[in-house]
């Protein structure tokens, strides 16, 4: 029997057991994550960049799909919490020899790992692992298929809050390949949960989900219209391989219609910020002048990513610790 996202992610005391998706989490939990991350932003600036919150814990980075940026920030986050970190490039090892995901999981559990940070090419993979993991093991979704990338969404929320203060009243435009984007799905859920006024998605019909409005967004095909008077512009990476799948005719046409240029940026609010989860395709998604311009907060997103991931890891490990203590009493 499947559990609701809320039942799977939160215990009876509404503490975070796993972090798999924004879906089912309410504003108070998301705000708690952001507030906790605030407390961790200073750690990176200290001489000794560590706090002892997760000392003695073992965190395994299970990356079934290649990643540099996300894996590195998770690794740094766990290390700054004083956890021991295992980096497992699973795609090059067990599963390529035919081992099932469940067997891989069981083997790692036998090594007494306390947390799995999972990236997988299949939607629902993190849910699957959370449903089958030992009760004492926390699972964090580092991106599964097209489904969710909730820590990326939270670091984006953190970036927005740092620059805009409040979510209420903001207009946010997400531009690009919404259809295949786990980042966009999580961002939309987070933005709506945190109470922004309007979430817009801007893309050609081929890069939109079939029923995009049901996600809680306003749909724009015209970039100029979609960007007008927005406070935040989130550009998504366009996977170039999509252009061969009868989804788009050419990079040239995509950039002419959906590339962010200085001219277009002028249509947004004067204090608008520009975000991108990276890596950027310069000249396809945005002009270099915009990517490197004063409104770009792209590099800040990366550094905030460590604080957000520290917050989430520490909250999940904290819940596991409390439950262990409660069970012992």
């Amino acid at each position, binding site marked *: 029997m499947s559990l609701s996202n809320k039942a799977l992610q939160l215990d009876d005391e509404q503490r975070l057991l796993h972090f798999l998706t924004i879906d089912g989490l309410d504003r108070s939990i998301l705000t708690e994550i952001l507030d906790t991350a605030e407390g961790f932003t200073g750690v990176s600036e200290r001489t000794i960049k560590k706090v002892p919150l997760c000392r003695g814990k073992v965190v395994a980075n299970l990356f079934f799909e290649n990643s540099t940026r996300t894996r590195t920030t998770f690794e740094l986050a766990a290390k700054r919490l004083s956890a021991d970190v295992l980096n497992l490039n699973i795609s090059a090892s067990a599963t390529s020899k035919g081992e099932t995901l469940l067997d891989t999981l069981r083997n790692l559990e036998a090594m007494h790992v306390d947390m799995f940070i999972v990236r997988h090419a299949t*939607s629902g993979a993190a849910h*699957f692992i959370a449903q089958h993991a030992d009760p004492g093991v926390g699972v964090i979704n580092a991106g599964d298929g097209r489904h969710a990338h909730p820590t990326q969404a939270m670091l984006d929320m953190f970036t927005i809050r740092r620059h805009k203060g409040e979510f209420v009243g903001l207009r946010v435009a997400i531009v690009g390949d919404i259809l295949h984007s786990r980042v966009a799905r999580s961002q939309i859920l987070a933005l709506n949960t945190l109470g922004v006024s309007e979430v817009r998605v801007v893309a050609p019909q081929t890069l939109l989900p079939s029923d995009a409005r049901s996600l809680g967004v306003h749909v724009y095909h015209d970039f100029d219209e979609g960007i007008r008077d927005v406070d935040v512009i989130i550009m998504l990476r366009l996977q170039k391989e999509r252009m061969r799948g009868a989804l788009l005719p050419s990079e040239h046409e995509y950039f002419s219609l959906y590339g962010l240029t200085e001219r277009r940026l002028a249509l947004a609010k004067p204090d608008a910020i520009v975000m991108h989860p990276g890596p950027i395709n310069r000249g396809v998604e945005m002009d270099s002048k915009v990517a490197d311009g004063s409104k770009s907060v792209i590099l800040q997103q990366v550094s905030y990513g460590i604080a957000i991931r520290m917050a989430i890891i520490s909250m999940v490990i904290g819940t596991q610790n409390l439950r262990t203590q409660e069970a012992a009493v």
Partner: protein
Amino acid sequence: MKKKKKDITIRNGRVVDPGNGIDEVTDLHLSAGKILALGQTPENFQPLLEIDATDQIVCPGLIDLTVNLREPGNEHKATIASETACAARNGITTLCCTPDTLPVIDTPAVVGQIRHKARKAGYCRLLPQGALTKNLDGTHLSEMAALKAAGCIAVTNCYTPLANTLVQRRAMEYASTFNLLTIIRPEDQYLCNNGCAHEGKVADRLGLPGIPEAAETVAVARDLALAETTGAVIHFHALSSASAARTMAWAKREGRKVSADVAIHQLHLTELDLEGFDSNRHVRPPLRTDSDRDGLRKAVAENVIQAICSDHQPHEADAKSSPLPDTEPGISGLDTLLPLTLKLVEQEVMDLSSAIARLTCGPADILGLPLGRLTPGYAADICIYDPNRQWHVSAEQIHSAGKNTPFTGWEMPGRVTHTLLKGRLVFREETL
């Protein structure tokens, strides 16, 4: 008169035989493996066995138009013996098995092997569907005349529908030469695009690759047009959309030689059941919307869809132990076919007679076989069930080798107590 070994009387049951318009409490007499008479005991008839069916329903043995028994080739999932025994426990006396075995059912030798195993097991009448194209390759026509001679009741390319419309046309024409029913699972492969869920709001939110409703409706429209051109008799298996059901209603009004069935789970589950990524709900065609489910229910109630099948797909546990898109699609459906159909009666979707019809005379008429009715002279295939028995679905209550059901925990109406195949008891509940 000397008592004959196979002479049986089923006493005092509520006999529901929609094919003959019968619904009354009466006796049923069987002799020499056939239906002898209904009602008063024939003169000099002295049955060797009497079955007391008081407070029970007596109906024709159920006919399941589409099941995959996994043998030959995938015996780690299920076998002909295990699944025909399961069918017998659930009142099903005729199974039509799909040709996507290893090897594919595209030669008389494979047909012979399968029928031999079914006869040896002895639980159920097994009618194989033959492959429409050799090795289901979608390119070369199978030897349909030989397949028919060997005992195939229909031809199909089952879960790999033909992409090439010219081959589809030729296959229909060739099948019609031998009066072979062509069974089509309507699906446009290109529109499916490796999807695993209905393209809609749930798949959008869960990030599951979608299969649009158009993948089915395009195929239905295409194959109706080809059937019109070729004169072939076609049957659509496992419709999943209200739109396809409406097209079927139109086709029937037009007098087209076409029929359709629906898998029972499509009448109960929807895309919303995919929340939580339960791989037991991963099916092809995918679970669609509330309105699709309601449209299918309406079509079944109005006899636009004449048969309900299990679309039985037993799997070993490993086949479902992965994230949903990576799992094999399909539900183990034999154990829940009758109860879930009876649930439609509880939910007032249709009356009992219509529900039983979709499992008996409806599929028999699609196959053009003298089955599914309690007509004197017909094979004495009988299902007796207790309508007042409720039970909960659990692994222990699933008798198929495949335990992959999304209905675990559901309360089900109706428990089969006896099944007779050609007048022989192939299942009798041990508690009686």
